[in-house]
């Protein structure tokens, strides 16, 4: 499937995302993949690697520096241009939406590059989804912790059972039209202000 294998350079300060993309490219049969997290000294690295395709995240503030280097630097032996398939506006939009951009060596055929860009787009999207889910799980865990502490405070100060303490929290939340975790947080904060840590 892959003829002479393309050299792909991935520039991403996010190490986890970079490795997710690297793995994807390798699975797709690209063996010559290099990942760079830090752009200092990048001109030399590009001269060494001679990449056919460069994939970079849009959060990277060094894009302007890189584009200028691709156009002008003597270190870059072959001209590199942004991957823009004018006939494929949807693909450009998908890339920007996903937060990724690609640059390719002049003369490389679009159909050889597009699968790499598509792969990068889907991996970037998958990574964002993963990061969002992780954030939600983390939030949930935090909520559960604070609710447990609030229950502990009620059990100790009001002599309630765990179940009764939870019921009281839930009822208060319903009456005030707020989340249980918010009520729990207020209680924990108030207890912290009012005296020694009674929930410990």
């Amino acid at each position, binding site marked *: 499937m892959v003829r002479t294998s393309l050299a792909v350079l991935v520039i991403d300060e996010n190490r986890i995302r970079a490795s997710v993309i690297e793995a994807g490219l390798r699975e797709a049969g690209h063996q010559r993949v290099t990942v760079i997290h830090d752009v*200092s000294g990048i001109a030399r690295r590009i001269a060494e690697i001679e990449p056919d395709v460069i994939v970079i995240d*849009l*959060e*990277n*503030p*060094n*894009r*302007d*520096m890189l*584009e*200028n*280097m691709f*156009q*002008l630097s003597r270190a870059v032996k072959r001209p590199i*241009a*942004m991957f*823009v398939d004018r006939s494929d*506006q949807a693909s*450009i*939009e998908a890339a*920007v939406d996903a937060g990724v*951009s690609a640059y390719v060596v002049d003369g490389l055929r679009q159909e050889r590059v597009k699968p790499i860009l598509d792969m990068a787009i889907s991996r970037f999207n998958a990574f964002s989804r993963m990061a969002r889910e992780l954030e939600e799980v983390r939030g949930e865990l935090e909520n559960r912790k604070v609710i447990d502490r609030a229950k502990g405070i009620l059990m100790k100060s009001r002599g309630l059972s765990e179940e009764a303490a939870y019921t009281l929290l839930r009822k208060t939340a319903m009456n005030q039209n707020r989340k249980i975790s918010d009520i729990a947080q207020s209680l924990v904060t108030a207890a912290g202000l009012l005296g020694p840590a009674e929930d410990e």
Partner: protein
Amino acid sequence: MSMGAEHQITAGFMPLFDSAVLVAAGELGFAAREGIDLTLHRETSWANIRDRIAIGHFDLAHMLGPMPLACNLGLTPLASDTIVPFSLGLGGNCVTISNAVWTGMAAHGAVPDLDPARAGAALGAFIRERAGAGRDPLRFAVVHPHSGHNYELRYWLAACGVDPSREIEIVIVPPPFMADALAAGRIDGYCVGEPWNSAAVAAGTGHIVTVKALLWRNSPEKVIGARKAWAEQAPEALAALLRALHHSARWCQDPANRGELAAVMSQRGFLGLPAAVQMPILTGHLRLGGGAELDIDDFFLPFDKAANFPWKSHALWFYTQMVRWGHVAHTPENLAIARDCYRPDLYRSALKPLGVALPGANAKVEGALKVATPVGSAGASLMLGPDGFFDGQIFDPDEIDTYLQSQKTTLKA
């Protein structure tokens, strides 16, 4: 966000102080008062701004003055037709160099007075001394190849007899990294907007040697670049925004509002830097390094001196510098593109209902005003200038070829 807003506008900006007029329009209600729901997106590179304008994520954005020209002249990938209906201010940049270069310049007569001719002569002598000793050329950084910073740094050096294409190296560094790169010795100097010059001075790692306001007084810097297709399809939204920006710019210029403006800009979503570091650009009072301090007239103007008027002569001066440094070929077609990019007609028609002072001409001879001069304008009085180049040159936008020819010979002398 008001639900009933008449116009929805999405704009991008870079976290630089000269986005202030756009940011304040959104944050302080000037846009809302014109019936605009203005959504601002902070970006991390000019390339991102260009891409997001091109694919329609943004209707308009805070841009480097020459950037819309570069888009229209096809110098950038993903270029989309971009117009400039408003300028975000005049001045605001400095040239900062490392302590080591300052020592070298001082040995050749540099003193901390920001005088471009004296500083340039000293830097030129130091550069030749280094070349004679077989040392590497000095490396200067600017923020983007198609930027006022790149062109004013080159103009300054060339006028002082230094060929910026051969005698120094020019690299691109994002503004927030400039001071660190200088401290680490990766670069020897840079041209950037505030607060990234004062940052190096405060850290004790750099000296400010000259400023944009002295290289070319009241000269153009950032602009509003709008996607032409959007501007044509939503002319009323654009006109309403230009009025909002006008009111915002007037507010930003008022010294009484400096504290509040600095507080708005210091928020994490905007500049994210302490209010104190924004004071030099607002007051024009600069610390230069080594204990020297100076007050600069017209250091940065967000409103005064017709700062918001998109002069065609500003665009054409950028065009001449693009030609001069080999960024674009000088052809009648390219000249026409450059001439059509800045749109004083849109600015004028949007502001006409306000009855404010408006320049009568679309272009002016740059560098001709030696003192502040009231000009004939529609409505109230309007002061322009002084607008001199430090080397006394004049740029007549009707004499482009002569100007280009004169600049060709400057360096050979």
